[in-house]
């Protein structure tokens, strides 16, 4: 449906209460969206100060303060803004859920960011399946003349590293979506040599709400260091796997409860995704925020939680993830291209309870210095982190495997991970 007039703003809409901010009021079509949220506020560079007050951090995994990126890009000329919805993490579904259910919130955020930094070009980088629906959403906005800067859609390949910042910029420039060597920060010189802002789409959605309801409202939930809500993708041994919204600081067990809670006793929970860390069953009271998880060697990342039931073997499951991550190497950097398959192979021997390999655990940890910090991106670092976390969280299972058995009950012959979960 098309209208050629903008929806008049009668009065500001009430701010969402509780934690149902992004998903609670989602509206796929423009008319409902504007009715629920009100028109996009006029914005300019002053929005950056409000974002700073709000303490908004990136929702793509790195949790970098959003205002710093905005300010750095705004300092340049002829900026480019990119909304990143690539979501190469298989255990994450939040970005495509957000784009499906509240695309206009994301597009509002993109438009506001573009206005704040003085950008001339805006891009949305997204999976192939969402190009059609987003094209329709953009057509609605064009008809209503909502966006000052036209938005181009760029399809993201379905690979793990496609969402890495320099890979995003490469794809926008028309090259393959592979990470590049970092000479200059993208905020100084990125796509086509212009100052470039790359933000996760969830961050942009929060930005759109902060522009309407203010920094104080945003800080009402969450922690002081990480205010606001986040989207968690919960999967594994829970009653209702799905994407849920929660405030930062909510205990891990509490987020699992949003998904109906564990449907059996849990051995561990993978926090932060495939580059994250395992929390043992007894550590699930820790809050989902950086400060609470750091002492446990974990971080919220992009809000991924995978619940490992008691009956499953953490080493076997980690081995399957490592095999996947090794195969997802961009293949550009020697240490990653050769080191990750080696790490995956050694870990695989451990998972398969190969007793004939001497000092297996030490050989795995000895690979870490060959992988950390040596590559154009942090794919090898994240993979090493997962492997190390598994060796620590499943230490008793490591001893068992080295002796030829496994602590998980009722498992068939080790070597094949039981896989299920997302259909993509």
């Amino acid at each position, binding site marked *: 449906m098309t209208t050629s007039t903008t929806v008049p703003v009668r009065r500001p809409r009430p701010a969402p209460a509780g934690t149902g901010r992004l998903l609670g009021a989602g509206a796929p079509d423009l008319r409902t969206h504007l009715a629920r949220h009100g028109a996009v506020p006029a914005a300019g560079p002053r929005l950056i100060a409000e974002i700073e007050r709000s303490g908004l951090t990136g929702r793509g995994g790195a949790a970098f303060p959003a205002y710093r990126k905005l300010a750095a890009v705004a300092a340049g000329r002829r900026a480019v803004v990119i909304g990143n919805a690539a979501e190469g993490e298989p255990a994450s579904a939040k970005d495509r859920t957000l784009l499906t259910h509240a695309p206009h919130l994301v597009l509002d955020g993109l438009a506001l960011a573009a206005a704040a930094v003085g950008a001339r070009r805006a891009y949305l980088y997204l999976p192939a399946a969402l190009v059609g629906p987003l094209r329709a959403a953009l057509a609605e906005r064009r008809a209503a003349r909502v966006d000052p800067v036209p938005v181009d859609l760029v399809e993201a390949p379905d690979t793990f590293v496609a969402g890495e910042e320099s890979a995003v910029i490469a794809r926008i420039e028309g090259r393959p979506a*592979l*990470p*590049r*060597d970092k000479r200059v920060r993208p905020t100084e010189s990125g796509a086509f040599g212009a100052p470039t802002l790359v933000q996760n789409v969830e961050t942009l959605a929060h930005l759109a709400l902060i522009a309407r309801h203010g920094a104080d409202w945003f800080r009402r939930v969450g922690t002081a260091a990480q205010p606001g809500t986040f989207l968690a993708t919960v999967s594994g041994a829970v009653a209702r796997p799905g994407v849920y919204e929660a405030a930062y600081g909510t205990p891990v067990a509490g987020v699992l409860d949003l998904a109906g809670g564990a449907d059996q006793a849990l051995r561990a929970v993978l926090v932060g995704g495939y580059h994250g860390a395992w929390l043992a069953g007894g550590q699930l009271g820790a809050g989902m925020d950086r400060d609470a998880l750091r002492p446990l060697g974990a971080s919220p990342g992009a809000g991924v939680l995978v619940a490992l039931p008691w009956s499953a073997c953490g080493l076997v499951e980690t081995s399957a993830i490592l095999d996947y991550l090794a195969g997802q190497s961009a293949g*550009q*950097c*020697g*240490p*990653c291209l*050769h*080191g990750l398959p080696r790490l995956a192979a050694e870990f695989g021997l451990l998972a398969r309870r190969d007793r004939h390999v001497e000092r297996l655990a030490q050989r795995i940890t000895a690979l870490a*210095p*060959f992988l*950390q*910090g*040596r*590559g*154009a991106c942090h794919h090898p670092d994240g993979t090493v982190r997962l492997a190390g976390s598994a060796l620590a969280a499943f230490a008793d299972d490591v001893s068992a495997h080295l002796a030829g058995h496994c602590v998980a009950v009722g498992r068939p012959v080790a070597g094949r991970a039981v896989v299920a979960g997302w259909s993509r």
Partner: protein
Amino acid sequence: MKLHVDWTACDGRGLCTELLPELLARDPWGYPVARDGTAEPAVAPHLRAHARRAVAQCPLLALRLVAR
């Protein structure tokens, strides 16, 4: 002053590990590893000339000296 490796260009030919043995060793696949364990090893003043030579001789132009 630090030594930066463009890993997308490096092919582990090993000239730099010969010209800067104080800073670099070789991993099992031939690629340079910083002996101090950092991603960009610091270049002490007495090694600067050697580092410049390593940068110039890299057959893939994968090395750079950066002021950090």
